[in-house]
Structures are given as C-alpha cells and as structure tokens.
C-alpha cells in the first residue's frame, strides 16, 4: 500500500563517497524506498474537522439543545480523532508543544498543532467547554461508557479538582524545559485508540475506563490539564449553558441529572453575622496567599533538581559523572554504555548543556512551585467566597455542556412540546411543596 517515492537526488549518486562496483552484467543499483509521511493536507483537514465539530457542537448545545445530537457527534469524534488519528496530536497534548515552543526558541511549532491548542480555548472563552461536550475523543470515550453515575462527595470533589491545575503545571514545566511530554507519556486513552501500547498505559487506561462507568469523566474532571485551561476560559464565557431558557421552577430534577457535580443550587445571601465571619476568613486567606506562593516556590525549587533528571541530557551527565574514571568497556555494550560512550566524546558539552538545563529547571521550579501554591490558595479562596444564586444553574467552569440536564427540565419539555404546559402548572406546587413526594 505504500507509495514508493523514488530518490530524487540522482545527481548526487554520481558523487558517492566511494564508488560501488561496476557490474559487468550491467546490474542497476536499486533505489532506497521512502514511503511518504502522512500528507500535510490531511493535517489541515484535521483542523477543518475540528473547527466544524466545534461549530456543530455549539449549535447542538445552544440552539438544538440536543443530547442525541451530541452523542452522535461524540461517536464521530471518537472514531475520527480517536481511532482514525490515533489520538495524536490532540488538544491536550498540544499544550506541551506550545510550552516547548515558548521554552525552546529552536523548536518550530507546526501550525496544525497550534490550531489544535487555540481553537477549543477560543471557543471556550465564548461558549464554555464545548470541546469537552462532543469533540474531545477522551471525553467522548468516558462519556459513552458512563452507565451508573455516582455522586462524588463535594468536599472530595473540591480537593480533587485542583489536580488538573497541578498536572498542567508539571506538564508545562517538563515540556518547556524540553525534558518530556509527560501528559502524552501517561495518557491513559491513547493506547486504546492505537489498540497497542505499553502494558502500564494499557492497564491504566482500562482501569480509568472501568472507573468511568461509575464516576462521570474522571480523567476530565480530576486530571485533564487542558480541561484546567478550558475551565478557566469557560469561567468567563459569554454564552453559558442554562438548564432552562425560561423560568426555573426549582424542581431540582436537573440537580440529580448531572453526573459531573456541576449543578449549583440557589443560594441565599448570608446573614450579616456569617457575612462578617466569612469576610474575616477571606481576609486571612488572602494574607495566606503570598505565603503559599513563596513556600510553594521554594518547594518547587527544591524539587527542580531531581526533576531535571527526567531530561535526557541531565541524566546522561549524571551517568557521565558517576562513571568518571571508570575504565571504558569493550564487548557487547548496553544502551547505557553506548550513551555514556557518546557523552565521553564531548563531556564538556554534555556537562555544560546539563548545567544550563538545570539552571532553567531551577527557574521553572520556582514558577511551578509558586503555581502550585497559587492553585491551592485560589481554590481555598474560591470555596470560601459566597455567590448568591436564584436559580439552579451549572457552574460554567465545571459544566461539560453534555446536554443531559436539558432533558430533565419540565420547562424544556414544555418548550419542545413533549408535554403540555398544563402538566407543569399542575405539577409545580407539588414539587415546591414539602418533603414526602409520591415516588411510585
């Protein structure tokens, strides 16, 4: 199936390093085959499909408000971005490419990768986490197997929801220093898309998929670093998912419908006494923030030295320093011996490069640590801030715009004409009434 591309450099063959034999029988030298890489146009096709899918998802969520449509789109994304493109490059991984491009001036970032990074974020600034809703193959995979959703206790959810930001920080740290793309390396679902992979990755993918049956989108909520970025963008989004476009009857059906813990219930303004206490606490937390930043920065700096060993050059320098003075080996050399041999040919360069990388890691370590401190500080502040709300509405940062809650809202059903409006008025007092609902 491979197209054989002939070597174009026929002229260069005339000037070979050392002439091959002249065959008396006139034997012609074969040409080395070079099956071409995936065509560049296909990369742009991917970007096009991404853009179209995002647009379609916006339409489905905000205009059609259709869960069914989103399921179909999810399956398409899973097939196209997941199984067809093997999940690579994806928006989640692309953030590392961008970080590397920022950290390494010599790294040229392909435009397609940049588009994968920017498009979902730009959309999120206007329309929330539309990308998660039906375009991301990782999300689609988890969403499709979510069969028996359990609710994660809110406290635990709050604690776990800082993890994506930490993972984001670590991913950026390692990518920007050119050490590793840890987000790709430990991506649990890419092996599923490729139908092969390291045992560790396959097993972690299987475990996470198993978990996704009971816990809604565990990777998206508690790990995904790109999700963290999307969450920030979605928090200020212009258009938000609203359970009902009309009046909320406070029937609380939607609250139970959300498997991702994103639904927020109405909250009254606190009384003056509580208010004062909250403000005092908030003041203390704001004072704590610089301390957290500084402490985190210091920890990050301490962490930077061992972390730098993830960089191949630093680990090679490590190997070199350890092996100093030891006699060279001959015979069957292991990969490490060979790497050491290479290092010994230019020890100065290796050491200098390693030292430079370690210096960059030290700076990166301060920033990473401060980021960790900031994340915890801001999270503590945000859970302490009181936001009065009148209606049930999804938290725009946490909502994946999966459109599940729409189908549960009686107002919505009336709007669609599925049920007559009269049922609603009849039901309303019953719902807002005291406990003791008829559950038969």
């Amino acid at each position, binding site marked *: 199936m491979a197209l054989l591309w002939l070597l174009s450099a026929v002229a260069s063959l005339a000037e070979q390093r050392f002439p091959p034999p002249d065959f008396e029988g006139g034997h012609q030298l074969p040409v080395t085959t070079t099956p071409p890489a995936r065509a560049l146009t296909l990369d742009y096709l991917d970007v096009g499909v991404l853009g179209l899918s995002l647009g379609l998802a916006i339409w489905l969520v905000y205009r059609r408000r259709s869960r069914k449509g989103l399921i179909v789109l999810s399956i398409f994304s899973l097939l196209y971005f997941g199984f067809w493109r093997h999940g690579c490059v994806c928006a989640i991984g692309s953030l590392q490419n961008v970080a590397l491009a920022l950290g390494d001036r010599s790294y040229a970032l392909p435009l397609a990768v940049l588009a994968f990074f920017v498009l979902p974020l730009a959309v999120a600034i206007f329309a929330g986490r539309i990308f998660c809703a039906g375009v991301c193959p990782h999300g689609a995979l988890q969403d*499709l*197997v979510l*069969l028996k959703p359990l609710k994660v*206790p*809110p*406290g*635990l959810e*709050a*604690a*776990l929801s800082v*993890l994506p930001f*930490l993972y984001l920080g670590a991913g950026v740290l390692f990518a920007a220093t050119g050490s590793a793309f840890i987000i790709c390396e430990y991506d649990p679902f890419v092996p599923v898309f490729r*139908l092969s992979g390291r045992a560790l990755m396959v097993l972690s993918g299987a475990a996470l998929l198993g978990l996704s*049956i009971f816990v809604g989108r565990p990777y998206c909520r508690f790990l995904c670093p790109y999700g963290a970025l999307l969450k920030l963008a979605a928090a200020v989004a212009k258009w938000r998912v609203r359970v009902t476009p009309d009046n909320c009857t406070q*029937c*609380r*059906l939607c609250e139970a*419908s959300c498997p991702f813990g994103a639904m927020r219930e109405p909250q009254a303004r606190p009384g003056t006494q*509580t208010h004062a206490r909250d403000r005092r606490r908030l003041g203390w937390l704001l004072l704590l923030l610089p301390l957290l930043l500084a*402490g*985190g920065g210091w*920890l*990050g700096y*301490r*962490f930077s*030295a*061992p972390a730098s*060993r993830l960089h191949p050059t*630093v680990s090679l*320098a*490590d190997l070199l*320093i*350890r092996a*100093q*003075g*030891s*006699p060279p080996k001959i015979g069957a050399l292991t990969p490490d011996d060979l790497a050491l041999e290479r290092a010994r040919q230019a020890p*100065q360069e290796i*050491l*200098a490069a*390693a*030292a430079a990388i*370690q210096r960059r890691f030290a700076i990166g370590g301060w920033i990473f640590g401060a980021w*960790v401190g900031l994340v*915890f500080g801001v999270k*503590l502040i945000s*859970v*302490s801030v*009181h936001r009065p709300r009148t209606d049930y509405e999804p938290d725009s940062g946490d909502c994946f715009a999966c459109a599940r809650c729409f189908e549960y809202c*009686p107002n919505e*059903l009336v709007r669609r004409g*599925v049920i007559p409006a009269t049922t609603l008025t009849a*039901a309303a007092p*019953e*719902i807002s009434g005291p*406990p003791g*609902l*008829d*559950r*038969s």
Partner: protein
Amino acid sequence: MLTRLFQVEAASPPRQSGGETVLLAWRLTAWVAGVFSLLVGITLLVEHTRAKPNDLLQPPQLIAAKEQLRLDPTNPQLKQDIRELDWRLRQRYFRHLALMGFGVHLLAGGVIVLVLAMMQAARCRKRVPLPGPKAAIPHPAARFAARARWAVAACGIVVGSGLFVLSRALGPNLPTPAAELDKLLATRPEESSSPGHPQAADAASLAELRQNWPRFLGADGNSFSPSTNAPASWNPQTGAGIAWKVPTPTRGFGSPIVWAGQVFLSGGDARQREVICLDAQTGKILWQQPVASVSDRPDRTEVPDSTGYAAPTMATDGRRVYAFFANGDCAAFTLAGQPAWARNFGPLKNPYGHATSLATWRDRLILQLDQGESEDGNSKLYALDARTGQTVWQRPRKTGATWATPNVIDAEGKAQVIALSVPWVIAYAAADGAEVWRAECLNGEIAPSPACAGGLLFVASPSEKLLAIRPSGQGDITQTHLLWTWEDSIPDVTSPASDGELVFILTTSGMLTCLDARDGKKQWEHDLEMECHASPALAAGRLYLFGQKGTAVVVAAAREFRELFRTEMGDAFHASPAFVQDRMFLRGMTNVWCVRTINEAGKEGAQP
C-alpha cells in the same frame, strides 16, 4: 404523576413483560461480552508478557545450538537442526504478532458490544431520577465550604509534603547541582590554557617534565618513563653499558633527579647539608652547594641515623632545583647552582626521620610536612612560590607523621595534590589548596607514595591492601570511588609503579606482584628473593628492580612473568632509579651509576 410525565421521555418504555425479556436479553449479552472481553484481555496480557521478541527470536536453545556448531563445524545434522529450529521460532514469532493484532481487535469488539448491551440494559431499566427531600441542613453552603476547605488544605499538604519528600529522597543522589557543574566547567578553561597562563612561563611544561626525571618516581610520580630505549642489559663487571660510575659524593637516601643533562643529588649530615650537580654525560661534579645556616635557631630536630638528613628526594620545575632536609631546611638553587632562596620549617618531629619528598606544580613547590601525632595538629601541606619560597597557601592536616610523597595529578582537567594520611587519602586543589575529596582507607605507617596512571590512583595501605581510586567527585568518596582493592603481598616501603594498564607492587621482602590496573586482577606474582627498598620503575616495557644488597633485576612489564636480566652491582641500593631516554641513573651507597643502552651507544647521547 411525575412518573407518568417522564415515562414519555424515558425511551419509549416497553410494556412490563416485554421489557423484562428485552432487559434479560441485553443483560445476558452484556455478561457474555464482558466475560469474553475479560478472557481475551487476559490472554493478550499473558501473551504479551510471555513473549518478548527477543525470547521468541533468540531463545537459549538456538544460541546453544549455534555454539555447539562452532565446536563441531562440519556436523550436517546440527546445521539441519538449527535451520528447523530457526524456522519454527520465526513462525512462532509471526504467529504471535498476528495473534496480538487479531486479539486486540477482538477485545475492542467485545468491549463495544459490552458497552452497547449495558447501555441498552440501562435504558430498559431507566427510571426517573426523583429528587429526594431536601436535606434539612442549616447552612448547606457553609458546611460544604468548610469541608471543601479542609479537603483542599489536606490535598495541599499531601502535595507539598510529596514534593518535599521527593526532592529529599532524590536530592542527595543528585548528579551535581548546576552550581557545582558550573564550577567544574569554570576551572577547566583556565587549566587547559596552561601554556598561556601568566605564571606558567616560570615553570617547564608537563611535556618537558616528562622528557626528564624531575622528582621522586618521575614526572608523574608513577615510576613510569616514556623512554623507549632504556638499557635492557649492562655488565658491572666488564663495564659494558656503564656510561660512568663515580663514588657517591655525599651521604643520603634520596633518589637522583635529572634535568637537561644534569643529575642532582642531595646529602649531608648534622653538620652540613649540600646539593650536588653532576654532568649526566660524564658524571663529573658540575657544582656543589652547601645548605647551611638557613635557620638562626639552634637545630633541635632528632634525626635517626637510619634515614639521615637527606632522605627526601629533590625536585625541579626546570627553572630551579629544590631540596629538603630532615631538619626542616628547604633550599632552592638555580640550575647553574646559584642559591635562590632557603627556608627552615623545623624542627620536625618524626620517629624515623622526615622522608617525604618534594613535588612541584607549575611554579609552585608542594611540601607535605606531616609530623608528630594526629592530636598535635602540627602537620601541614604547603604550596610555596617557587621563585621566592613564600607560602602561597597552606592547609593544616589532622594526621601524624607520614613518609609518602605527595603527587600532583590531573583529574579531569583539574590539578589535585594527593596527600596520604591516616586514615584518609585527601585531594587538595593545587590552585588554592581547597580540599576536593577524601577517602577513608589507610592504616599504619604510610610510606608508599600514591601513583596515578590511566586515570586511576593507586594507593597502598602498608602491608594491608592496595586500592585503586577514581580521583573524582566531591567530599567523602569512600563509598563511591574505590574501584578495587588487592590484599596480598602489599609493600610497606616501596611505591607502586604503573603505566595505566598494569600495576606492579614490590614488598620489602622482594615479592613482586603484577595486577591489571583496570580491575585489580592478579596477573602474576614472583618472589625475587632479595630485600628491596628502592621502588620498581617502568621504562621501555620493562620493570627495573634494585635490591638493598645490590642485585639488579629486569623483568618484562607484561601480563606474564619473564625475567629478562639479572646482575650483581656490588653496591647497596635504597634509592629508586631515574630514566631519561637511553640512560638510567642510580644512586648506590658507594657509587652513582649511569647505565646506557649498549647497541645504540655513541649514536644518541643522553642530552645535549
């Protein structure tokens, strides 16, 4: 009522009895698909683990069969067996590949069916989520906020301590922090550009030093001469190969040093110390300078007769010669014999008399004055300005008297002064005397000097063990940089000799051992049956040994023992020989000898 309301939406609910059947069918499908997927998954996992490509393709039996064929190269049956085995193995490997590919698709199909079935089953059972009674909690938001705060704080503590533990646990093993790497790199250009070094002009280059014999045990302190035509044999009786022989002009145990056609000896007694320069061509005394009244204090050093005043060997940097005497006198002369400077470091407290020889590094004279007991705190290492004798740096040493000579080595571009003490081998930076590393491995009365060759440092703990140390690292390197030890027939007086490939050690009783420098494996040992105080020396692929009673032995510096030459000199030797090109210089108790390569005699002189 609400139930009815939602039944409209909840996926066209089938009638009760039909629904049950469908549900059952989907459940059964789900179970079957689940079990199937699990089985396939386990099979794949097992197959994946069991069958690494190398196990499949290069199993021991194939390797063994090929080995067998090597021993029996004409056996046709064996060849046939190998071919069949090879065929089977390759088939097995590609079967494995096909199986894995097929299995993965099977698994994917199974999982898809499982998920679909479970979805359908769930749809069949779908009931309206009815919100329960609103829990009557007083301030739900405040309670949630409080819990969330605690949870986040706990998570923060876990993450923070995780980072801390991680940096602590991995920290100490860290290669070298950036700052130290920088230091390492920063020192290198300065070291490597030594010819352009402003001070280097006042000292000979290392290449020049190696062409001569500027100090005890040669330029590198490892008793190795780069000479390729050192004398292989001579005859003291007939005088064949003896270029000259003159009566030893002064008493002393120090070895001769040679620079540019001049041989230097020091000697003396309580009354008078002196430095003597002989012509390397003829043995004539070129100049003779007394070293007197260096100190205006009365000399209170007790010097035993067995070592005398001139046990330390002189040293030269190619510009001046330096001599040290057991009473602490240190004197420098120009090559022409003009006194340059003199200092007294006495009195020295030493039970056998001070015997440590001198070393030079660039334009500095390295002086190791270990004395008394460890507690006295009188031991010091000095670097003197070779032009003036002024101290450039000094380091106190927590050790008692030792007799080994310091060695200046090049460790990855940095010059280090290796000085032995009990129990430490310590490396000081030659530039500023800062301690670089130390290794705890010595015991007893330290007399054998450290030799460095082939990037390794060979140190003898007298009569106990010989150690090979990688002279690198920082701080205490005892656990990390000791490459090997050897514990048999260890010298207590003589120093090891090495060309970087082999190490030779010689005990006082004459047991000569040859070890592989890289791994310390014994190549051979041989009893020379003579008492030796002179250290063995290597030149032109031969090892030269001189007994106290005058026996001279030459053996091949090779991996098997071969005695090449043996003769009686009729002299007593305590000093080690010096080699320069085709000449060998010996200081006996009665005569100073110059032995010269016979077959080349007359064509190539020692030095113009």
